[in-house]
């Protein structure tokens, strides 16, 4: 600790050294935006003809000592400068500056503080709350899609699913790849509790600037700031939309005729069973059987305002998303109260608190959509008597509609998130801030499996293996409680042309989690009796309870310095301690510099650039997002055995652990340009980055002789690199007084590769038909497909006879796939596999267009993703020859009448993974199209409404893709149904399995298309 204290004191002494500065009359005032009245932060206030001056604080307020006769100059980038007489200081000055271009005067949240965007030396994306709420999306993460260069969002239509967010590529296998979310100071990995309408801005720290979050910053940081009240009379807002949802796309499967033709060809024996009542003359589209059109609605109401000493913002929202799969559904209710009270001139109390309750009826999407894909079209889903078609008696898959109807899943979540904080201005330049942030989550999960037999009481005909002999009730309760306590001292001082901001802080954090669950059988089928006590205690039951606890502790510091708004320097340091490792402490830092070229004298006379900045940063960040005691060898208790017929519980020690396990380290370089030209109509940024992850955790396979039950050893062995460019561009202009428009676009070009395994073995991922599909190895992108190279279809027996024998799966046959003998050894085996792309996109981004004419507004948001590949696991993973096939496959497959050269006659459970199943994952989607109309103000005045806008919006209206599956956007399955929800709530990383298999399409929830109508009303 000695080092830290020295550092802290040094930082403080440095601050004090600069603090003596006082003369003349004190003149106070406030600078606001002339158009919207918002406080302007960091406005330069100088005394004309001198070099002395100050800046406005976060409330837009300033205080300056000047002679009464002086003239004050207020200047702010993007605003017209303004002059005002200083006066005698008795009345505060109220200065309103007219805006020129909004993009550059934004304030961004940089972690434990805010900065003007123009002073920032790192790469930080900023999205306003209004952009978020334009989307019909349940989570802010989903609404970020396509809005920020370098931020990839992979989301699913499944209600209450967690969208995956990748900032500048994938950089970890075991420690999680999602960013850290910071909601008003609360550190979390799950923001599904946040009401989009409560958000004022989302800032994304993409580069080394995330180092202020140290060991949690490696995947980037997304900072969400919620709304606060403003001084003035109460403003009441009501925002709502009501929409109709449907699946944007389903797969066209073979119908009865196509299916029977296929069966006749490959599995003729099966058709002898094609008779009533097992099958029916019709043709079932199983997607239609389980999907539906459904409603969604979203209501928000908020009240905000403030007096001289306080501001308030209160809101409530209700969201109801029925989901497009039968029995699915999600409802969320949120309350928020954000208050600030100025207790004394120097002391401010504030709190931000949200309460969320959500209720979900989850479904097991993977199982349902796998069965939907495979079920035969000959079987009726359910007949008029309520009896189900027996697909399992036909073809060994369960009837997915019955599966939905016989399971009742219910999960409720209560979450409290927020903070209380005190701010004390020790001197005007030095502020002490302490905030206690809490995040509590209480889940109740109840899954009921209804008893049914595989006989005539359930099915049109008995038999098969879909049955539930005993009804079963599973109950789980999760408790999660995290706090982090932040203490910071911020120093902000301007003298002459120098501007210094210093920050020192100390934080501590504790996370606790526990769950308890139990199962009982034979619970009556009545929701009022779905309690464990009603189950049969004599039958097999289970009960389970466990938990987790981990802590972190940190000291942090940051210095920003700028000279004359031209030369910018930033440095930050964080020393983090984490209970997850034996070596607990690590140091993380960033240094950055910026040069605002447009402020140079030689740029004064040119008219092209309004603003031009070159910036660069380099930082070291960490990732400790792994299970809590991965370095400690633990026993496996309660291993049952019987002596004298009595149950005894043994234990075993069967782990091999790395006692020196530590965090993953990411070094990131970023070089960027920011610019505005053509009279601020064209603004943008361009960045180059190189992000290298060292000491990445991987599971190394170890010889079985060591007796480890997992056969693996987790250690810091791998390294990854993500390197690329990002460009963002925006054009905004007005034509006349009624017409304005904007167009913006962004792109990220990323190259991902695994640099080294350092003695670790390559990682196989995803199993189909007994072979793995992806391989993560030196020099290749993460989870590259590593499969046989399919080079056509055998046309005749002569070709089969001449071909190398296939020892990896099915034997060569006419109509079968033929594979390249890559190594030329005369046989087809595992050594002939090749790398064939990965799910990592080469390019992704978005573009957005908007026009406003008079009272009408129209906006569109596009998202695209190019250069990635998808492994169509649905097609490859055949359980049985009776499985249904794509209609397209049925039409084009090899037959003697139609000897296709590219499509085989049949894919069986022995067909090995090959390039035949790899498809392009590129797509372009119109995420959002909105048309709005704002009613004329004079009409509204009479009914006491200050603003009323109505709009029509379509979400996911159009997707252009060549991918034949249900969606090119693949998300890991929602685990809510059976698994502990801790992984997503508690900050523990997604398993490596999902990263290694993320490009393998095996039954995903369809993308949802929504048409909705909405209103925005302000009173």
């Amino acid at each position: 600790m000695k080092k830290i204290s020295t550092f802290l004191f040094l930082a403080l002494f440095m601050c004090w050294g600069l603090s003596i500065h006082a003369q003349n009359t004190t003149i106070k005032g406030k600078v606001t935006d002339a158009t919207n009245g918002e406080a302007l932060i960091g406005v330069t206030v100088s005394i004309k003809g001198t070099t002395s001056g100050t800046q406005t604080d976060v409330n837009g307020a300033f205080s300056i000592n000047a002679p009464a006769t002086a003239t004050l100059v207020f200047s702010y980038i993007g605003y017209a400068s303004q002059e005002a007489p200083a006066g005698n200081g008795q009345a505060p000055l109220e200065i309103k500056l007219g805006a020129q271009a909004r993009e550059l005067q934004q304030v961004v949240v940089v972690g434990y503080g805010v900065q003007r965007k123009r002073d920032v030396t790192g790469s930080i994306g900023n999205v306003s709350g209004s952009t978020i709420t334009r989307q019909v999306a349940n989570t802010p993460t989903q609404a970020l899609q396509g809005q920020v260069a370098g931020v990839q969002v992979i989301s699913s239509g499944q209600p209450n699913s967690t969208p995956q967010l990748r900032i500048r590529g994938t950089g970890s296998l075991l420690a999680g790849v999602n960013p850290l979310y910071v909601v008003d100071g609360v550190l979390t990995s799950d923001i599904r509790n946040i009401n989009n309408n409560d958000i004022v801005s989302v800032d994304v720290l993409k580069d080394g600037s995330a180092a202020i979050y140290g060991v949690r910053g490696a995947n980037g940081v997304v900072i969400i700031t919620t709304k606060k009240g403003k001084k003035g009379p109460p403003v009441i807002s009501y925002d709502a939309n009501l929409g109709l949802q449907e699946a944007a796309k389903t797969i066209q499967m073979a119908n009865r005729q196509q299916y029977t033709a296929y069966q006749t060809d490959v599995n003729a024996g099966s058709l002898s069973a094609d008779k009533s009542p097992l099958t029916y003359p019709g043709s079932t589209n199983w997607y239609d059987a389980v999907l539906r059109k459904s409603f969604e609605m979203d209501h928000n109401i908020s009240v905000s305002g403030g007096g001289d000493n306080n501001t308030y913002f209160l809101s409530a929202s209700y969201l109801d998303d029925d989901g497009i799969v039968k029995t699915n559904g999600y409802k969320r209710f949120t309350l928020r109260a954000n208050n600030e009270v100025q207790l004394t001139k120097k002391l401010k109390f504030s709190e931000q608190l949200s309460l969320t309750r959500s209720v979900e009826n989850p479904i097991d999407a993977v199982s349902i959509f796998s069965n939907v894909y495979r079920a035969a079209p000959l079987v009726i889903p359910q007949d008029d008597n309520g009896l189900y078609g027996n697909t399992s008696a036909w073809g060994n898959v369960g009837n997915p509609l019955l599966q939905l109807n016989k399971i009742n899943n219910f999960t409720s979540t209560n979450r409290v998130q927020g903070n209380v904080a005190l701010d004390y201005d020790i001197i005007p330049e030095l502020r002490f801030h302490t905030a206690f942030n809490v995040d509590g989550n209480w889940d109740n999960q109840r899954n009921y499996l209804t008893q049914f037999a595989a006989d005539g009481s359930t099915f049109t005909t008995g038999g098969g293996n879909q049955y539930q002999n005993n009804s079963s009730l599973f109950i789980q309760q999760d408790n999660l409680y995290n706090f982090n306590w932040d203490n910071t001292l911020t120093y902000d001082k301007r003298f002459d042309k120098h501007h210094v901001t210093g920050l020192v802080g100390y934080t501590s954090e504790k996370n606790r989690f526990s769950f308890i669950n139990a199962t009982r059988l034979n619970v009556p089928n009545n929701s009022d009796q779905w309690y464990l006590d009603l189950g049969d205690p004599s039958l097999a039951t289970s009960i389970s309870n466990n938990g987790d606890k981990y802590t972190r502790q940190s000291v942090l510091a940051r210095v920003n310095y700028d000279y004359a708004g031209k030369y910018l320097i930033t440095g930050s340091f964080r020393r983090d301690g984490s209970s997850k490792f034996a070596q607990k402490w690590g140091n993380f830092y960033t240094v950055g510099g910026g040069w605002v070229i447009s402020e140079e004298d030689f740029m004064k006379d040119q008219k092209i650039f309004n603003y031009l900045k070159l910036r660069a940063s380099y930082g070291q960040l960490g990732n400790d997002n792994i299970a809590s005691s991965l370095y400690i060898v633990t026993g496996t208790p309660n291993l049952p055995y019987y002596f004298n017929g009595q149950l005894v519980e043994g234990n075993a020690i069967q782990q091999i652990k790395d006692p020196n396990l530590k965090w993953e380290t990411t070094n990131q370089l970023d070089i960027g340009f920011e610019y505005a030209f053509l009279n601020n109509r064209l603004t943008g940024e361009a960045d180059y980055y190189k992000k290298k992850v060292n000491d990445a955790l991987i599971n190394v396979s170890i010889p079985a002789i060591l007796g480890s039950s997992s056969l693996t050893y987790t250690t810091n062995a791998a390294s990854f690199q993500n390197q690329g460019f990002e460009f963002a561009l925006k054009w905004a202009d007005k034509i006349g007084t009624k017409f304005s428009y904007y167009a913006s676009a962004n792109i990220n070009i990323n190259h991902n590769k695994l640099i080294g395994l350092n003695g670790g073995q390559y990682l196989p991922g995803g199993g189909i038909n007994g072979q793995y599909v992806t391989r993560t190895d030196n020099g290749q992108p993460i989870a590259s497909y590593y499969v046989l190279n399919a080079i056509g279809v055998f046309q005749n027996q002569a070709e089969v006879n001449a071909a190398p024998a296939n020892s990896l799966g099915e034997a060569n046959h006419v109509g079968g796939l033929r594979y390249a003998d890559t190594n030329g050894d005369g046989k087809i085996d595992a050594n002939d596999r090749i790398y064939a792309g990965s799910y990592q996109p080469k390019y992704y981004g978005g573009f957005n267009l908007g026009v406003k004419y008079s009272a009408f507004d129209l906006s569109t948001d596009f998202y695209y993703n190019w250069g990635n590949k998808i492994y169509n696991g649905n097609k490859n993973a055949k359980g049985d020859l009776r499985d249904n096939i794509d209609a397209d496959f049925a039409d084009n497959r090899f037959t003697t009448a139609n000897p296709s050269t590219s499509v085989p006659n049949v894919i069986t459970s022995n067909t090995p993974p090959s390039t035949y199943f790899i498809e392009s994952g590129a797509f372009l989607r119109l995420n959002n199209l909105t048309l709005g109309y704002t009613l004329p103000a004079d009409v509204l005045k009479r009914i006491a409404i200050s603003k009323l806008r109505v709009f029509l919006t379509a979400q996911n209206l159009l997707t252009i893709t060549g991918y034949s599956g249900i969606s090119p956007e693949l998300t890991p399955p929602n685990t809510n149904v059976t698994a502990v929800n801790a992984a997503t709530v508690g900050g523990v990383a997604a398993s490596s399995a999902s990263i290694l298999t993320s490009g393998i399409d095996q039954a995903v929830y369809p993308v949802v298309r929504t048409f909705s109508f909405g209103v925005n009303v302000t009173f």
Partner: protein
Amino acid sequence: MKKIFNIKFMALVAVFTVMIIAVNACKNYLDVPPQGQITAQQIIKDPVQAANLVTGIYNVFYVGGFDPDIESLQYVFMTDVASDDADKGSSPTDDGDAIQIDNLTTTPSNGTINLVWTGYYQGIGRANQAIGVLQNAQFDATTKNKLIGEARFLRAWFYFNMVRFFGGVPLLDHVPTAAESNQDQYQTRASADDIYKLIIGDLDFAVANLPEKGSTDVGRATKGAAEALEAKVYLYQKNYQKAYDLSEAVITGGKYSLVKDYSLIWRENAVNGDGGINNAESIFEIQAGINQDCSSGVNLYVVSQGPRAGGKFGWSDLGFGFNNPSQSLVNDYEATDARKNGTIIFIKPTGTVLFDGFRIPGQDSVQNSTYSYKAYHSRTAERNCGGNTDHLPKQLRLLRYGEVLLINAEAAFQLGKTGDATTDLAALRTRAGLVATPPTGINLSSIWHEHRMEMAEEHDRFFDLVRQDGVQPGRAAAAFAADGGKVWKATNALFPIPQQQIDLSGGRLKQNPGY
């Protein structure tokens, strides 16, 4: 300036407060023990936990199925399916690894051999952990040596199977330290002789320190079990004197006797005091039961060998249908041998009714025509865990008195004590409903024939054939030729070392010849 001084003072106080919190908290704030787990450190210090480590070794018998395997499906593949006693079963294409094994074409990348290699080293690892911790545990010497004896008996069991499958394997007689674990000493194969030395050392210790049956808990390894296993080990070593002495010790010890009705040996319940679990004949037996989470039995052992519908529906079948007794085995029974119907479930055209009254439908609803009766566990008349059939509590009889008689007979015959051999076989043959003396008289062939009939489907045949081939070359080739004309090569006597393990050793493990 006074004001500024005050401000400085206050700032100092604030910073001090923060620092004090930080410094105090640093001491132990970050030392968070694992939640809900027992650490290895805690186990090592606690005698109760040390004893529980021994129980943990027995528990390893429950692993298996399609995971690392000790006595379950993969082991069955490598013992019965590999031999002439059984065909692979299930559907014709089901399980490519087993197809290779059945056809004597096992390749180094075969998954089964890797699962068995892995399972056995888990067992060895658990035994070594227990032996290591027990050395320092606070027990009286008798208790301590008894527990160590059990652990060493089990370790001998694991190594005996390993050496018979693979020949010499890496020899780990303690838990290697992190520094040791990558050393050549452990990453290379020891000789088969060294493995046998370890086995015999372990069993000598076990014989000396384990109590007799009746003086210890039912289910624990006993002196008798150690003697029986050591007799078997010596038979494989062709040390007939030791094999004879040790088997004789079991026989004359009087603790064991034959079950009267052969078919009751593998049943759960005794009939009129005869047979059932832990019966008079059982010397060492995997214990199983019903616990809350249905985890107390060998995983998938029963269900993987259960009769299979295989797409021929109309009934809820009993399993995956692996390990079908072969025609070669059926042909070898003498006409009235009661053991045939005690060993094999024959699927009859009109349906087959089992001992518990369960009726398997006729041949057109069943995939295969024979199944192992010894692996059958009744869903109605025996213990069951709800509908969970993965861990049905079948208690595998790993060593039984009948086998000791066969060891004794063969050893005696080799030592010229034909009288003893005659007595041993008479006991078994009489029980089987046959004339006391084999029709061809007492000779190696008739003893080996008796061995096959007595031990069929008890996962011994492959080892025994290889052993017999070592005594009388040509036996194995003839036996496989009679089993559908399979071609036996001398190199088939050992399975290949799993390629994955060779790779993980960095090539230091060397492959067996012929692969």
